């Protein structure tokens, strides 16, 4: 037995050494294997449709009829289409009216919920999420009834106070405010909790040290809270940009399911316009061109927001 320990008898082990590089090879590849399912699915359901959209956008493409290559003609038409510019305006208007107040409300609420002396803190934190977990359709029904022109609670109240009825969905401003109100209602809780989680990670002694140095709550907020929250603010701003610019369900449901969202397209967003063209009028090519434009707009706006929000709290 001891003979096996002599150097000369190591030779039979050779096959084992031969397999080692193979093992290493597999070990190196294994992690890719573990993450592969996601990327394969992403490739099939994410990247491929995305690239295919770019391809379809170059065609006059009737899904059940002819398709002819038209190059950039769809984009030229898009530039001249007043409906596109109208939808772009509406999208930005709704996005700004919904995102800015939403994130500010969330920031303030997170600050309040983070107060160490708050009673029933968990109850309030959970309650924040209720609008978020309620289905959009249910929320839309409630909002549509609250703001209904003839029989809505809000208008009933206005009448009681001696004012006339307001038809929110009939004007651009009214419909944008109503849609934004619904978006804010759904999403403020989600953002509040993100901010809250981040706030709780800020060391208390920072505040104590600042207080000792004579900094008031406002100064503390701008010099400690805001800089500490910067990463999560960047995240929420980008997510709200992506979500806000693609807004579809809320205007669709609040306008009784009309893809034009009102008689003068007063609240038609880019996504609704895309859907109207692609699936209402069977113009897949034109719809895809709108999709490509929307994609480009979101990338640009998200990038600008990233630049702006990552500078937040750095100065002063």
């Amino acid at each position, binding site marked *: 037995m001891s003979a096996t320990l002599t150097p000369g008898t190591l030779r039979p082990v050779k096959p084992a050494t031969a397999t080692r590089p193979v093992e290493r090879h597999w070990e190196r590849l294994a992690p890719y294997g573990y993450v592969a399912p996601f990327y394969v699915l992403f490739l099939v359901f994410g990247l491929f449709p995305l690239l295919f959209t770019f391809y379809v956008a170059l065609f006059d493409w*009737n*899904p*059940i*009829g*002819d398709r002819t290559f038209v190059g950039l003609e769809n984009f030229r038409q898009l530039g001249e*289409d*007043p*409906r596109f510019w109208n939808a772009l305006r509406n999208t930005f208007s709704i996005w700004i009216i919904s995102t800015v107040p939403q994130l500010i409300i969330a920031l303030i609420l997170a600050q309040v919920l983070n107060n160490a002396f708050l009673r029933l803190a968990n109850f309030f934190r959970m309650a924040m999420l209720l609008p978020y977990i309620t*289905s*959009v*359709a249910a929320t*839309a*029904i409630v909002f*549509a*009834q609250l703001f*209904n*022109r*003839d*029989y809505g609670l809000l208008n009933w109240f206005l009448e009681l106070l001696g004012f006339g009825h307001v*038809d929110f969905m*009939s*004007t651009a401003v009214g419909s944008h405010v109503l849609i934004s109100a619904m978006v804010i209602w759904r999403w403020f809780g989600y953002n509040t909790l993100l901010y809250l989680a981040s706030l709780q990670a800020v060391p208390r002694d920072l505040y104590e040290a600042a207080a000792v140095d004579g900094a008031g709550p406002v100064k503390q907020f701008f010099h400690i809270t805001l800089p500490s929250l910067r990463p999560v603010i960047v995240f929420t701003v980008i997510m709200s940009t992506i979500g806000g610019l693609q807004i*579809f*369900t809320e205007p*669709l*449901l609040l*306008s*009784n*399911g*009309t*893809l*034009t969202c*009102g*008689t*003068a397209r*007063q609240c038609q967003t880019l996504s609704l316009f895309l859907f*109207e063209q692609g*699936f*209402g*009028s*069977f113009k897949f090519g034109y719809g895809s061109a709108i999709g490509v434009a929307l994609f480009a707009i979101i990338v640009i706006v998200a990038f600008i927001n990233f630049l702006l929000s990552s500078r937040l709290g750095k100065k002063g």
Partner: protein
Amino acid sequence: MNTVPPLSSTASALSRRRVLALSALAGGAALTASACSGGSSASSDPNTFEFWSFTGINQKDSVEEYKQLAPEVTVKLTEVGNAQETAQGLTTALAGGKVPDLVLIQAGDLPKFMKNPGNFVDLTTLGADDIQDDYVEWVMAQATAQSGEIIGIPTDVGGMGIAYRTDLMAAAGLPTNRDEVSALWPTWEDFIATGQRYTEATGMAFIDNAATTVFLQAVSQGEEQYYSADGEVVYDTNPIVRESFDLGLQAIAAGITAKLESFTDGWNAGMAKGAFAAVAAPSWMLGSIRSAAPDTAGKWDIATIPGGSGNWGGSYLAIPARAANPQAAWDYITTMQSPEQQLQHFIDAGSLPTTPVNYDKPELVNHTDPFFSDAPTGKIFTQAVLGLEPFVNGEYNTEISTELLNALNGVEGDGAPADAAWDTATKNIKTAIGA
């Protein structure tokens, strides 16, 4: 029976149920995905076929009935969504997915499919030639391509009438008897004048809205509508379209409209509260009135529509070209859409037959509806259908009618200037269809 409104992309139409259906649609391509993955194993069985229908029209009953008539056949019925969603699902399926063997298409969605008849089985190859004379000529013409292929067999039509509240008419000092009321409005001008009398007497609105109750009905009476007989787009030169549009504007200017767009929540509520006394009602809308205003039973009646004839909606059964089992689907069509079965379906569910041979049958003529003061609904609605002539539809029917209705609704509800409405509409149509 309740054909879902054919203008779903236009005139707004949502009950709570449809909001839910729409949210599913908004959730992503779930609809398409499930549509594409429909069972494919059954394709070889000659006694099984797949049937896509839409919600609200209750095809389950017909399928159940078919089971009695042909027990060896299995029908796999799927209600894809509302009519519009079903048409969208069908579009995706035709573009490259698993298609059903039989599909129900609403009249309003049909012109888009007619543009490419190659997507469907030409039913003349299965024997449609022999039965096409059973159906109302203009209804059949809608499903016949210019090159002669027959794409669909009509299951029902939406003959028009005016549903009115007898109690509200009496309160305004107007007649309540349906013959006397019909005599009040041989023309649309008379109809608007009657509305003015009503509004002056009561201070209330006479009709729900001008777009669907006046314009849409008036334009649908034209022998030529948005397209000429040879398929040219003529909405902007056809005097009937312009006259109907102006009638709509007149009704708005006369102040007789309640500014309630059809099928909205406010419209439903207005119906129950008596916010308007009359509404243009196709045969399938009686169910909507019944469910929206159950407390008004017996207070309604039905008069003939100004101009005497009209149609709104209806549906067709078609067989996709790539159907696995077209013969089984065709057998279903010929059995369930035979004149005898259509009459039975009218008696059971109120669905208006497309087969004129039934229009004289005592079962149909003597059918009355207690909710509508025992009005002979079958007689009134079939007469409206018979008065129509064949007319040509085109690819962009929906877009054209959407913009015209939007322009009128804009004037009525959103305060858009009336004198610019026609120009707005035609400009928007030009943008939409490029012609």
